[in-house]
């Protein structure tokens, strides 16, 4: 990876950003619904969901692709961010719910007024979420704090590699079980849903949907630029050094645990923000978003798109989810086979993902050329075959 911003990448990102941030919203806003070019609000919202997934994928990539930490709990942070904003949106429903009560419906349903009589049924930790800005702060703070505590515990005792993956999987599994409980005050297995307004605007109006979409796109671009910048600094260099040989970095006098902890918390914040934008567009958040399987799925997007590269995860996240939306309508029964085999195929044959394909083809081409040459000098081919480097 080169330090500078190559012209070609700049061009690609510029075109993609223009399409996502200008063309699609304009097609939605300014073309009549019967036009062939019209993008419906529903589709736009769907694309917005993909973009939030892409933000999540960027966080995973920063962690896995650049630092070599495979966390199977990133969806936990995504959901935590989502829940934080969801709580605010839940409180903003006001008396528009089914039960016409001051508190969210599920609290009436689960008889919270009897449990928290002094606040009229609202659990005390829900009260500050009446403020949007507090909720927005929590979108960042909650995932960061959880990631800090878990990361501090894990990296301090030098838990790494697959052990870290397994532990993070256990963490998200435990949290998922916790959120499924009704008395955990977050709506049990129905989660938070049926939102009505955001910042006083109708959450289902096309204008708000478009704004949320633009926010997701803008944030994705910002995250992309930030990650791009971070990985090109000296910090990014150490990150990659940790990925490739942590012990050498450690013995060179760097406190690798602190670096890893920083990246882990950063990735959690990125995931959390993604989650916060996901919730108003999908209009629901529930504990099934934080199952270990979801986190693994997010890792698949990164692997398929290509990790250790900033565009790959975005392509993977958007591509696979768009394909999934199509496939689960067209041939739902076969979808697990497709994703399963895709996963096996990518891991076995495309270690660098879609974005690494051109390079892989070039390597193969070079190898064939060399084999043709090596008819005369067989010794060279042995050297050539080992040149295919694989990221650890």
């Amino acid at each position, binding site marked *: 990876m080169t330090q500078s911003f190559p012209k070609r990448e700049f061009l690609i990102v510029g075109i993609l950003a223009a399409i996502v941030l200008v063309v699609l919203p304009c097609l939605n806003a300014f073309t009549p619904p019967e036009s062939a070019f019209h993008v419906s609000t529903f589709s736009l919202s769907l694309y917005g969901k993909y973009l939030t997934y892409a933000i999540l994928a960027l966080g995973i990539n920063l962690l896995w692709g650049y630092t070599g930490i*495979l966390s199977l709990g990133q969806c936990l942070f995504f959901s935590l961010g989502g829940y934080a904003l969801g709580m605010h949106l839940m409180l903003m429903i006001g008396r528009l719910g089914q039960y016409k009560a001051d508190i969210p419906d599920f609290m009436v349903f689960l008889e919270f007024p009897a449990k928290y009589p002094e606040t009229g049924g609202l659990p005390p930790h829900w009260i500050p979420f009446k403020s949007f800005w507090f909720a927005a702060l929590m979108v960042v703070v909650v995932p960061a704090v959880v990631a800090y505590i*878990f990361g501090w*515990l*894990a990296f*301090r*005792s*030098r*838990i790494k*590699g*697959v*052990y870290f*993956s*397994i*532990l993070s*999987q*256990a*963490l998200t*599994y*435990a949290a998922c*079980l*916790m959120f*499924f*409980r009704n008395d955990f005050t977050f709506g049990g297995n129905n989660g938070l849903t049926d939102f009505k307004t955001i910042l006083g605007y109708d959450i289902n109006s096309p204008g708000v949907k478009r704004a949320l979409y633009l926010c997701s796109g803008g944030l994705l671009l910002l995250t992309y630029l930030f990650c791009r910048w971070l990985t090109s600094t000296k910090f990014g260099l150490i990150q990659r050094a940790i990925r490739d040989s942590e*012990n050498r970095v450690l013995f060179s006098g760097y406190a690798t645990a602190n670096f890893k902890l920083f990246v882990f918390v950063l990735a959690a914040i990125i995931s959390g923000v993604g989650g916060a934008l996901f919730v108003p567009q999908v209009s629901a958040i529930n504990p099934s978003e934080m199952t*270990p*399987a979801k986190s*693994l799925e997010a*890792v*698949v997007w990164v*692997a398929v798109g290509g990790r250790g590269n900033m565009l790959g995860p975005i392509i993977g996240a958007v591509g696979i989810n768009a394909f999934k939306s199509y496939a689960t309508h067209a041939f739902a*029964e076969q979808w*697990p*086979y497709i*994703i*399963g*085999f*895709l*996963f*096996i195929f990518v*891991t*076995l044959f495309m*270690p660098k993902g879609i974005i690494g394909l051109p390079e892989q083809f070039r390597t193969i081409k070079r190898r064939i050329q060399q084999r043709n040459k090596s008819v005369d000098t067989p010794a060279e081919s042995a050297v050539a075959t080992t040149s295919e480097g*694989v990221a*650890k």
Partner: protein
Amino acid sequence: MDMAFLLRRIVIFLIAAVILSSLFARGQDTNEFRRILAAAVIAEDGDAQLEGIKQLINSSDELVARALAAWRLGELYVLTTDADEKIPILLDSRLDEEGRARAIRIRDGEYLKGETGEEKLFLASDLTPADTTSRLRRTIKTTLDLYAMANPMPRMRRDAVVKLGQEQNPDYLPHFEARQKIETDPEVKRALNEAIQLTRMADESAAIRNPAIIALGELNSINSLHFLKQFRTTATNDPAKYGQETIQALTASIVKIENHIWWGNVVGTVFRGFSLASVLLIAALGLAITFGLMGVINMAHGEVMAVGSYTAFMVQGIFGTGLMFSLFGNPIRIKGFGLTGTGFDAYFVVALMASFIMAALVGLLLERGIIRFLYKRPLESLLATWGVSLVLQQIFRHTFGAANVQVDSPSFLSGSFTFNGSPIGFNRIFVISFALFIVYGTYLLLTKTSLGLQIRAVMQNRNMASCVGVRTDRVNMMTFALGSGLAGMAGCCLSQIANVGPSLGQSYIVDCFMIVVLGGVGNIVGTVTASMGVGMTNQILEPWLGAVLGKIIVLGAIILFLQWRPAGIFVTKSRSLEG
């Protein structure tokens, strides 16, 4: 008024005397009870009917019991002949095409015949049912209950006795005592003793009551705890009537029985802990080999277990009534042997072996097809095997349906006994002993066979083992097949205690990985210890916190424990940096 009552009594006495005398006069043959019943059915006087019914307690005649039960439900009919003779009859349960049935005469148990000797048929709606009153029905019920005390099945006898004892009806006492003299089954004897003491407990006289209360305590009678507690509440509210002595006796007995139950609960919890630990151990042992020894993260481990469970299901079907499934959309029907009893029970032994072989084969395919390319990239073996797990789950769904399948326990594994009121199931005992068996087997395999030696050599230093002539490729293959085979057997075992469905594996995978990490990777003893610890903690926490919260706390505790010992409970000592 008094006069009328006295007269009634005299009439009853006379009728009873007639019935009784007829009983003694003609001897104790079974027809005697039938005659009494027949007489009671047509008797005009309600009290006489009751007296007659009460006579029937000592009968052990099937027909009498059937007729009584039918009478209670209004299905006993009275046929009035042309000669104005009333004949109580019971209709046969088998009907002809017009809904008519043969009639059994209660008096002698014969089918009613017409003049020419052919059996007469009746329609139930044409007949007049014998009259019943609520008092009569109650008496019939009591008689049938007491009658159940003579049931040839000890279990039925015991249940009947327990039920009757809880009515605390002093009228039953003589029956209990009479039965106790001839009873041979120890459990029924105990139940009779309990019933007698429980009935005596309700006596007015303290001299009878108090010893009964103490006796109940001595018997550790869990069934009567509720009655003792209720009685204590009544007695403490009115100490003048019941006296201090009774209250003291009650308290002492209640404490004694509660103590008894507490011990039962402790043993039950420990037992359930062991059994959960064994389940986890069986499930994690295969993983301890593939992950612990080989360093391969097999996310499809749970699905390999499910392969074992489904193999058990298929073997069961082949032994039993056959099975149906669809292979790639083609329905396939396999005809079963149609075995029952011991022949069917033997399926489980076959299933254990078959599930080992099937799962080992799946493991072999997995290793040859995917995992052998990823030995140097453990994180990626995690991703690829997760893909395998998705595919396998969907294959299960397509082949056997999305719903859970039914795997019947062989008769020697179903059933349980109770220890101090805590149920202890045979299937759980089996799981515990099976866990011990396969752990010991694995230990022997790893330490006493040449394959075990090679496995350990390859795991310790692959290159060096290869240099001294161990065929590492083959050893990898065998190790992975062994680990998968063990997972398959685990799945077969789980089919006896858990639901078998496409997502069976998912519910165990996180726990299994945690146990292997907690125990210390590459260490079977560690896996055993870790599963014991997790199983026990789970069962001890469960009554207080519920199953889910208990599980969350255990997961949290494991994460914290690894702070203290990052490499698990038992650390394999190594000089290499990555340990």
